[in-house]
């Protein structure tokens, strides 16, 4: 079941998880994810890394597009240059994250052929980076880095690529069978020419866009759908049901909901939220366990770290970056006495007795968001006397617009990891970053992040890991954000369907090892 429509099958234009999922059914990257989310070879049989850590040489295996032509290194060169040139939503994966030579300049108008990628021959694809990027291979399973056959693409009328099975080429486990933009049901079927076709068991997948989780649930019970996602309040009922409880699987969705506070003077009664104690007071007045148990209810995890758990594990120790949720308990926990102490300090420092803020949230971002916003209001107002939080509902687009234009006091927002490294979160809070909605600025933090991304720690994995922890500590100490919960997906999977891999990063569902009895 897909919650929303597939917006685009063009890797340059797609921005939503559902589109990425269908693209990944049909096109392979250089690398793919194993069941645990680690990068393993896909179209690249192997790769070499230069001694300075800045040049990757990928050796491609024999693979074919479904029109019979071979997948070549040039398909990657063409697709990557195109992403940089068009400078869309995910182009930053090439520049800021992948740090590929020339990517940032091309996004600002430089010649696309200056991108640091080349096809030495049909089977050898070389990528040059500005700096070593330790997680680079794991970026390769993200659809932005997938290939497109140049000859096929340029032979199509403008704007028609990926708008039907005829205008789309597959080289992955499945190929597009039936699709038009805006369709409510699309299907992919097994690709007999896939390089790893022997391992693919499913004959195909049919996707149905379902408007509400109620119809999803009934359709599942009726046998019309084999895999559906249900909402929090259905989970409780499913657990009680002898049949459904066997089908229930909760998987990490990756993204974290958090509160962001505008620290500029034009908001929050003349910049009151620039006061650290006031932010800490609010953060410590929130009962996160109650939020996930009573309002979200789908297995989401209460979160007390700026980097959520479950998606970024150290490649040397294998330990989850945020496994320990108590490490910042001094700054982030549910403790009304502590919250009140912070609150009294804030009142003294600011010389006022009460506060009135507006909290914005999206009313088209899932059923639970409204409930969570109301619960936070109640919890904070109950814990801190004299504090008034007014709720203002709007669409997600309006919420983003207000946050980006710094026209809000407090916002309930979310961020999903784009790649399996804590930096996908920590990178947001450096000075002047577009996602630093609080306009917080800390020179020490900026330096730590710069050292991790382009400086001192880029070649020292463990030192970098430690520096990221130090950076996270600063965010939590100063309550730049108030983390709330890490979202989970509650799936119902029909008996007999097995082996679907669920991931919190990049691709939510992968069907390469799935089987149907």
């Amino acid at each position, binding site marked *: 079941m897909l919650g929303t*429509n597939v917006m685009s099958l063009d890797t340059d234009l797609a921005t939503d998880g559902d589109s990425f999922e269908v693209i990944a059914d049909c096109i392979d990257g250089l690398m793919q994810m194993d069941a645990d989310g680690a990068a393993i070879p896909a179209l690249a049989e192997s790769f070499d890394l230069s001694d300075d850590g800045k040049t990757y040489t990928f050796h491609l295996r024999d693979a074919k597009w479904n029109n019979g032509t071979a997948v070549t290194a040039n398909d990657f060169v063409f697709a990557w240059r195109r992403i940089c040139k068009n400078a869309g939503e995910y182009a930053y994966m090439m520049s800021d994250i992948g740090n590929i030579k020339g990517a940032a300049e091309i*996004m600002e108008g430089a010649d696309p052929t200056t991108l640091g990628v080349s096809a030495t021959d049909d089977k050898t694809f070389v990528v040059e980076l500005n700096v070593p990027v330790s997680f680079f291979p794991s970026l390769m399973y993200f659809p932005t880095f997938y290939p497109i056959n140049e000859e096929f693409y340029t032979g199509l009328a403008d704007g028609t690529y990926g708008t039907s099975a005829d205008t789309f080429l597959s080289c992955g486990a499945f190929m597009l069978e039936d699709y038009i933009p805006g*369709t409510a049901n699309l299907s992919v079927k097994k690709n007999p020419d896939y390089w790893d076709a022997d391992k693919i068991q499913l004959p195909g997948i049919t996707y149905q866009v379902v408007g509400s989780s109620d119809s999803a649930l009934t359709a599942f019970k009726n046998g019309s759908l084999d895999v559906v996602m249900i909402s929090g309040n259905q989970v409780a009922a499913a657990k009680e049901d002898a049949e459904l409880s066997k089908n229930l699987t909760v998987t990490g969705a990756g993204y974290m909901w958090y509160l962001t506070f505008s620290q500029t003077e034009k908001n929050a009664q003349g910049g009151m939220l620039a006061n650290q104690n006031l932010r800490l007071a609010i953060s410590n007045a929130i009962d996160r366990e109650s939020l996930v148990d009573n309002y979200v209810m789908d297995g989401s995890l209460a979160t007390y770290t700026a980097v959520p758990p479950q998606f970024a594990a150290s490649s040397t120790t294998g330990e989850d970056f945020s496994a320990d949720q108590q490490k910042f308990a001094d700054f982030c926990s549910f403790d009304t006495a502590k919250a009140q102490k912070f609150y009294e300090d804030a009142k003294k420092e600011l010389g006022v007795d009460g506060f009135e803020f507006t909290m914005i949230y999206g009313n088209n971002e899932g059923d639970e968001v409204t409930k969570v916003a109301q619960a936070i209001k109640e919890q904070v107002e109950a814990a801190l006397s004299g504090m008034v939080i007014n709720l203002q509902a709007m669409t997600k*687009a309006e919420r983003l617009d207000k946050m980006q234009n710094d026209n809000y006091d407090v916002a309930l927002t979310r961020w999903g990891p784009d790649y399996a490294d804590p930096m996908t979160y920590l990178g947001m809070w450096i000075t002047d970053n577009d996602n630093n909605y609080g306009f917080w600025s800390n020179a020490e933090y900026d330096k730590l992040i710069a050292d991790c991304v382009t400086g001192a720690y880029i070649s020292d994995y463990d030192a970098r890991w430690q520096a990221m922890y130090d950076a996270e500590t600063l965010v939590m100490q100063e309550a730049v954000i108030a983390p709330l919960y890490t979202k989970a997906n509650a799936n119902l999977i029909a008996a007999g369907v097995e082996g679907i891999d669920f991931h919190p990063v990049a691709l939510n569902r992968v069907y390469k090892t799935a089987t149907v009895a």
Partner: protein
Amino acid sequence: MAKYILKRIGLAVATLLLIIFVLFVLVRIMPGNPFPSERMSAEQIANKRAEMGLDDPILVQFGRYMVNLAHGDFGKGTSLYYGAPITTVLTTCIFNSFRIGGLAILMGTTVGLILGITAALNKGHFLDHFCTVFSILGVCVPGYVFLIFLQYFFSYKMSVFPYFFDASRFLYSSILPALSLSLFTMSTVARFTRNEMVEVMDSDYVHLAESKGMYGSKLVTRHILRNALIPIVTVLAPLVVDLLTGALVIEKIYGINGIGKLMVDAIAGEGVDYNYVLALGILYSALYIGIMLVVDLLYGVLDPRIRVSAKEGDA
């Protein structure tokens, strides 16, 4: 008569142009961002805006839009089905909505007329009461409630019809939503037909026709129904547009990608899609204006007096 028709058409076109202009301006001043992005830098977004010409003076933008529109080009989506031309997506959605809407109109008016005529001819008897109760229920119960009811019995319990819409098995999977959609029309048509017919049947000229020995189907079709139809056509017209443009909730429940659902996605989806909102607004307006025009002309066919007065008015 030709002059009357031309005048009506001219007026309709002028109205539509005015609506397009107002819509265009309203969409531009609507809150929300056409590129709701958290990953693009401010410069990237500015470039995308510039590419779409959103920074030009509004009249320049409007002129460009009208030129493209004249070529049948609605542009591309900014936050919805990016990349694909709107015309492609719209065609799919219109196709789905219109076919289901068309089926609903067909069922609604046919059954409604039969029920209404039966009730009127059996005034005061059991069939009349039955039709009245049915009409009241049909008007009061929302279509989607009826759909959930049908879905529960025919799809979930009995598996006679599919649980979701499936474009590849169109007719089969359209019956439940079309039936639900037609309920309101059916009841409205039945109610109006009955009331109008009862009134007409009691009028002097029908009594005269009867006294002259005319009765049976000839009397009903030529004298009673024809006169009763005028008010029915008036109420039917906006209903037709409603049915064609899709019922949002029904489309959502049954998983139909129609234009009602598209409209909501365009406004309340991830971002406000300027081009989709405009394209759909124009489509809705054109449909309403078109249907009203047809109705005006139909009056002339149904009632010669309207034709005459129009002629006198022109002269």
